[in-house]
């Protein structure tokens, strides 16, 4: 009896598209990732070079000398200090003001809706334009703000042109532009909070301060973190308001990271040093964002655990 050879039936071939689909779906993300990474890696590379466009004959790889030069320069420590003061001042004041306004506008009413929309106007103004407006308003000769403070006897206030008041002036402009951002984010948060705890507290006759500290604030914390994270990252990278008002002066009193990096590249054509400054800024923003994100995750876990 002869054996009949049995050939296994061919495996059904899956069409190519379903097999490639996972890769195709991740392709846009990969392209975006490459698009971000190439300039980033290039900037890291430049930061390790002595690279001034006007002295191409001196271009060379110098490892960390740009960083060493920055951290041994007292002016750079001034930049770190000024940037942090600016960031902390603006974020804290905008948070307090934004929260205060949000609490006032919390109740849904036609008037509150109109006011909240009107308050968003500064946010729609380009910060550089806002800075120029404020530059005019603070002009000692014809500025309306100078005139207003002269009515209460302050006649020699120099606003952005004195190193003693320059920080106050630019922080004021930043507050004018960005407080509405805090306000709208926190207002959305406040209006989305569940009503039951508030109703229960009301029935129990709990005073408003206690309700705010023990109910509103804890429940609002994720929104506060989000608002502070966005504003902190934005504020430490401030450029347009400060550059348009003072170009980093008087002296070095407002020479924050971005203004310094901009001057190094566009005015001094020093690519290496500019890249090193931006790398330090990146490191600071990375650390800050990690701290905020971790805190935010903890809060979320706590909230999930509680539910």
């Amino acid at each position, binding site marked *: 009896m002869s054996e009949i050879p049995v050939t296994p039936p061919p495996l059904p071939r899956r069409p190519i598209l379903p097999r490639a689909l996972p890769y195709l779906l991740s392709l846009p993300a990969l392209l975006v990732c490459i698009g971000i990474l190439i300039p980033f890696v290039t900037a890291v590379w430049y930061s390790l070079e002595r690279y*001034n*466009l*006007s*002295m*191409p*004959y*001196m271009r060379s790889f110098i490892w960390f000398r740009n960083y060493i*030069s920055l951290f041994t320069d007292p002016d750079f420590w001034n930049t770190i200090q000024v940037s942090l003061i600016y960031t902390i001042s603006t974020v804290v004041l905008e948070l307090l003001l934004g929260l205060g306004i949000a609490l006032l506008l919390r109740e849904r009413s036609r008037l509150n809706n109109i006011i909240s929309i009107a308050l968003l106007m500064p946010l729609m103004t380009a910060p550089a334009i806002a800075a120029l407006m404020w*530059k005019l308003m*603070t*002009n*000692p*000769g014809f500025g309306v703000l100078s005139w207003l403070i002269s009515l209460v006897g302050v006649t*020699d206030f*120099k*606003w*952005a*042109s*004195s*190193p*003693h008041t320059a920080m106050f002036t630019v922080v004021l402009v930043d507050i004018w532009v960005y407080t509405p951002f805090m306000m709208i984010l926190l207002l959305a948060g406040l209006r989305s909070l569940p009503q039951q705890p508030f109703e229960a507290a009301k029935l129990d006759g709990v005073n408003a301060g206690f309700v705010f500290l023990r109910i509103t604030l804890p429940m609002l914390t994720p929104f506060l973190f989000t608002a502070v994270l966005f504003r902190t990252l934005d504020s430490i990278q401030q450029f347009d308001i400060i550059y348009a*008002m*003072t*170009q*980093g*002066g*008087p*002296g*070095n009193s407002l020479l924050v990271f971005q203004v310094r990096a901009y*001057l190094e590249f*566009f*005015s*001094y*054509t*020093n690519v290496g040093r500019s890249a090193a400054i931006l790398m330090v800024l990146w490191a600071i923003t990375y650390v800050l964002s990690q701290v905020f994100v971790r805190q935010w995750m903890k809060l979320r876990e706590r909230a999930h655990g509680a539910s």
Partner: protein
Amino acid sequence: MYEKAKDLCEAFQARGIGRRDLMRRLAALGITAGIADMLVNATATRALAADFDWKAYKGTSLKLLLNKHPYADSMIADLEAFKTLTGMDVTYDIFPEDVYFDKVTAALSSHSTEYDAFMTGAYQTWQYGPAGWLVDMNEFLQDKSKVAPNYDWEDILPNLRASDSWSGKPGDALGGPGAKQWALPWGFEVYMLTYNKPVFDKLKLTPPKNMQELMTTAATITQSGGNGMYGVGLRGSRSWATIHPGFLSGYANFGGRDFTVADGKLKSAVNSKESKEFTAQFVQMVQDSGPKNWATYTWYEVGADLGAGTSGMIYDADSLGYFTATGDTKMKGQLGFAPIAPNPEMSHPTSNVWIWSLAMSNFSKRKDATWLFMQWATGTDHLLFGAREHDMIDPVRSSIWKDSEFQAHMEQKVPGFLETYQVTSPDAKIYFTPQPLFFNVTTDWAAALQRMVAKQIPVSEGLDALAAATDRQMSDAGLG
């Protein structure tokens, strides 16, 4: 009649008669102003084209990068003449000065081929030239076959030609041996006093002749001018632009220098005895009689205050004074001009200069055609057109300063301007030491002045610290 009109236009081109005379005689022939202009342009084109092949690149299109400035406006108004002459097309992008040089840096550093030629200052060529972004114009100027017979290079003021040429070696003199011609001078400005005549008359003041008189006069105006008026308008922003006008002109007059050069190494000289003497007076003057928000003042605010009658005078560009005196300002027609030699021991001013120049991008794909444009734009005919018909008030060509129609035009619009220029110009030149870190050094210099004016640091100590910081920068860059 046509032949007579043609003869008159040719006589005008040959400088036999002036424009005013030409127009009067053409009018006598019954020719209207519009037709007269066409005839003049046609004759000019024929005259230019007579001995040189201006049509060699017919059909080529060039692109320019321009700064928004009255000189650029003048050129744009005359572009049709160039197009007719060459058969070429010219397009341009024009940006306000705040962002203009950022755009130039971005275009050149990315080796963009978009722009063929662009406006620049001499200081910028100290960065762009050594970077390899500019064409050395000597390549064209020294090739007789490429230069139109009537393009008189020697007619351009010698200090300006020198100011746009440099060897690229830090500390080498401008226009010295081995220098490359990085750009062609096109228009410039010197620094003098422009003052508010009604206020000077009211307070019985005469234009100050030196620094002491300037300080006294400015203080008198601040105290007695009324309506919040202050004495003297000066730039003060944290920028190189604060240093190069009145400040450096006065500084040079006192014998101050930015650097000393020895064995090819640069050493800061901003803390010399002369520097400290002048700087102390300058700082005192700003504190006593300058604008309250001096530290944010650019040329724009300086001019705006003078035009509004808020400042008694300015020590700044002659062109800023001119445009304020002739523009739509409150003080129109009421401003006077005066030269100043700040050092009482000096008999004449030593004005620094800013030179608007035209440079050719090394990345241009149409260099020969671009050269034709640059030759035309810096040539006598176009510059004469700008000087007579527009506001190119500081022509770079000596022949134009001698042009009777230009002189009459200026004397009528701004009496006293030409006399002031004549006193100011003989020693007008760039008083900075050419080196590639020009913008770092001068920006730090402005920041140091701001600290001194704000009384954060005494003048002597501030200048010592500035000199030490500058030397450190020079050393880091291998220049000191």
